[in-house]
């Protein structure tokens, strides 16, 4: 799985951090998403999918099945 975030789109609602704190964080100054892990391990996949579903601004893109590069 490959994860990408689009910081300009992010509205800092924080769903991603609640859903998958190992993969996403928020910048202290403005709450904008920070990607901690572009290729999260198997055990994180479900949580990352949930984050992408919850994100109200479609700022998280998940590409399934790709090997960590």
């Amino acid at each position: 799985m490959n994860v990408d975030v689009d910081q300009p789109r992010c509205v800092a609602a924080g769903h991603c951090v609640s859903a998958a704190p190992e993969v996403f964080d928020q910048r202290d100054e403005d709450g904008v998403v920070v990607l901690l892990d572009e290729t999260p391990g198997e055990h994180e996949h479900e949580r990352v999918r949930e984050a992408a579903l919850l994100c109200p601004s479609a700022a998280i893109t998940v590409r399934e099945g790709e090997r960590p590069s």
Partner: protein
Amino acid sequence: MNEPKPLPIAARAEGCPFTPADELYEMQRSEELPRIMVPSPLLDEFEAATITRYEDAKNALSDTRLRMGFVFDPEAPRTMLNQPGNLLNYNGADHSRLRRMLTGAFTVKRVRSLRPMIERIVSDRLDAVEQAGAGADLVQLFSTPIPTLVICELLGVPYADRADFQHRAQVGLDVNTSRETQIRNLAEMDEYMATLIASHRESPGDNLLGSVVREHGDELTDDELVGIGNMLLIAGHETTASMLSASTTLLLRNPDQLAVVRDEPDAVDGAVEELLRYCSPATAMPRQAAADMSVRDQEIGEGERVVVSVLAANRDLPEAEERDLDELDVRNPPKHHVTFGYGAHQCLGQQLARMELRIALPALFNRFPTLRFACPEEDIEYRTKALVFGVRNLPVTW
């Protein structure tokens, strides 16, 4: 196209304040987006294309061609909504510029750090309920003060000023007051907020508003800061108060679900999501089309108004195939809902609201394990016609 119907977008079924009216479901089934008349304090009433399906709601709310319906108008009289600084009045780059200055104060991390403060407020309110004894009205003693006091902490309202502050917040919500009273009350709120801003300018407090002044004070006018303070109050206290009261009545009517919230700490977060979905306190979101556009294959013309029914959309989630969404089921929380809206304006305070609910509800049922209504259930009055759903009275005993 149908003739517009004189129907409030948040109509409820006869006999159940939590169930959407048949007419709303009828609209949801219709392929067309029905045009209905929506009553409005500012515009008297307006015609709007009505969105009631969940997928349509998400698509519409994330479409940048749909603008906030009542964009700030400096020429029009200043009201609680018509103020600079209120995020709900801005679109596009102006909106994100302002929102980015506030989001740092609402990150998941920052909100978590507010937990001890919220726990203290909740525990004080439970003491007040206990002191009032049998017949205590939870609306007055619990649901209304908790969110207002949390906002006092965020804004840095000193203890000595809190009684007045709470009073003004209550008058602001009271529909039974005259126009003159409302105008005077609003002027007092603005005036108070201005003194608060002045003192933060002098020495920024160790709270949310203080941090906004410290970090962004040079990019914001005093007027905008006053508007931001007022916005946090308006957006944050009635909705959260409504959730506390409505959740409590619902759980009192469903004792087995109340027991889940009371006895199973691990189930509380999910239960709160289900209560948020089911109550939908902010019932509808108005917008206006800045260009010709379509939602699904339904056309909306430039300049047309649009209203999204949160109440209806939350009963149309993908889960509808597996369960009856007209039933409350705290053990079966939704994956997603639109109670906090969707898209660029999605509720700034949602993590805070969740935290308040997750703390206050279990605390209430643990302090009073035998809590029950102190009046016949039918005597509980609900506010179903306003934009924000509410419970008017909630006398309890234990």
